């Protein structure tokens, strides 16, 4: 199906008013055509507005939905669709007891080396939602987030993780506030503002692999993110990446956790 044919059917397609065969052809074209993608999104938005807006959903129906909206038996704590990627971060099960006795900065040094050199590519798709959540949160809800972070600090179970630029550095670049529920905050101390084409990106490092925890933006202040509450990551790193974010780090960390969380 060529562009003109597909475009002519976009309205009908947005209303599910085409045959299955046509739908497949249009979808294939739209996937490759930014113009049609944009027009389709507009049609769908209008279609969405045609639904009723002033009605309340029945409570009994919610009871039915709730009875089936359960966590599948044995399912791992599911990672959020935006922040972490397709599978939970594995805890470092095999860390030797002797590691824990090492001074904190050697762990950080190891992290930096690991993160810089051997980070394996993971099939992590960083969705645009990731950036959206980060940016919306960072800009529109900044005050609320700062308050939430303050509240989090008051909870006894909350952990604070300092991020340092290099082993032994005396000043922290930033700090992570990790709440038991998994909701966490990055708090910037010394990371300088980046040009708009760049972003800071936060990573969890486990088993030699880095998994994106989200984009922090070019001028981060306090940025919320979410970690696996049952098995929180033990090592964090921050890199500078292009503004859209990347699936695996392309540069050495500018900061990493000084101590395992």
């Amino acid at each position, binding site marked *: 199906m060529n562009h003109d044919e597909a475009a002519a059917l976009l309205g009908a397609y947005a209303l599910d008013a085409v045959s299955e065969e046509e739908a497949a052809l249009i979808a294939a074209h739209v996937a490759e055509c930014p113009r049609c993608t944009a027009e389709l999104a507009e049609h769908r938005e209008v279609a*969405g507005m045609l*639904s009723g807006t002033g009605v309340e959903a029945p409570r009994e129906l919610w009871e039915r939905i709730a009875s*089936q909206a359960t966590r599948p038996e044995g399912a791992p704590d599911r990672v959020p*669709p935006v922040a972490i990627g397709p599978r939970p971060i594995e805890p470092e099960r095999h860390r030797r007891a002797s590691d824990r006795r090492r001074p904190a900065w050697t762990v950080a040094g190891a992290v930096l080396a690991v993160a810089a050199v051997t980070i394996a590519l993971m099939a992590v798709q960083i969705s645009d939602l990731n950036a959206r959540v980060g940016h919306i949160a960072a800009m529109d809800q900044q005050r609320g987030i700062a308050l939430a972070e303050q509240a989090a600090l008051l909870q006894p179970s909350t952990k604070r993780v300092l991020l340092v630029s290099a082993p032994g550095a005396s000043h922290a670049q930033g700090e992570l506030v990790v709440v038991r529920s998994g909701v966490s905050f990055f708090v910037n101390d010394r990371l300088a503002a980046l040009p708009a084409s760049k972003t800071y990106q936060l990573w969890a490092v486990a088993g030699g692999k880095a998994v994106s925890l989200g984009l922090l933006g070019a001028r981060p202040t306090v940025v919320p993110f979410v970690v696996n509450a049952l098995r929180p990551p033990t090592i964090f790193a921050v890199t500078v990446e292009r503004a859209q974010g990347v699936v695996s780090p392309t540069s050495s960390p500018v900061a990493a956790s000084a101590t395992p969380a």
Partner: protein
Amino acid sequence: MRIDLATASDAALVVAIGRYHEPALAETYRRHGGAVRALAQRVVGSDFLADEVTQDVFLRLWREPEQYDASRSGLRTYLVAIAHHRAVDLVRSESARTAREQRSGAERDAGEYDVEHLAWDLAMAEQVRVALDGLPDGERDAIQLAYFEGRTYREVATLLGEPEGTVKSRIRAGLQRLRRSLVAHRADHTMDTT
């Protein structure tokens, strides 16, 4: 920290649903369940099937929250689109089609079938109603038959006795006209869709 559900953005709710946080799904249902069910009801014409569609939509969000891409659409747009697709699947199935033809015929006999009033029983936002009202008849009829009746544009063409190409164009032009009208309205009264 607990998420303040009442003030959380839709995107934040989806993140929480990603963590199997049931109250986030409840809040999503509270915000958008009414719209989803009203549309489903309008298309399938049955409370029972509308409930089925609504349940499918929210359980799908629960099980596959990663399917929602906030950069592409608002959450309501996404949920309503799934509901519509599912509802259309149902009405296009053979048995439902037969039942609907009978119902439609009965309504026509009773003089209740009026293409201009197909959508009016929906609890539709006033500005949307006004925008629909402002469309040329041909565009409005085509959109209503396609969207609320689950007809293909070919069926709409047959029903209205118009060439298929005309119906295609009218649906597309009508949606664009609706959008301009709604955007103009939104510029006047900042519309809150959450």
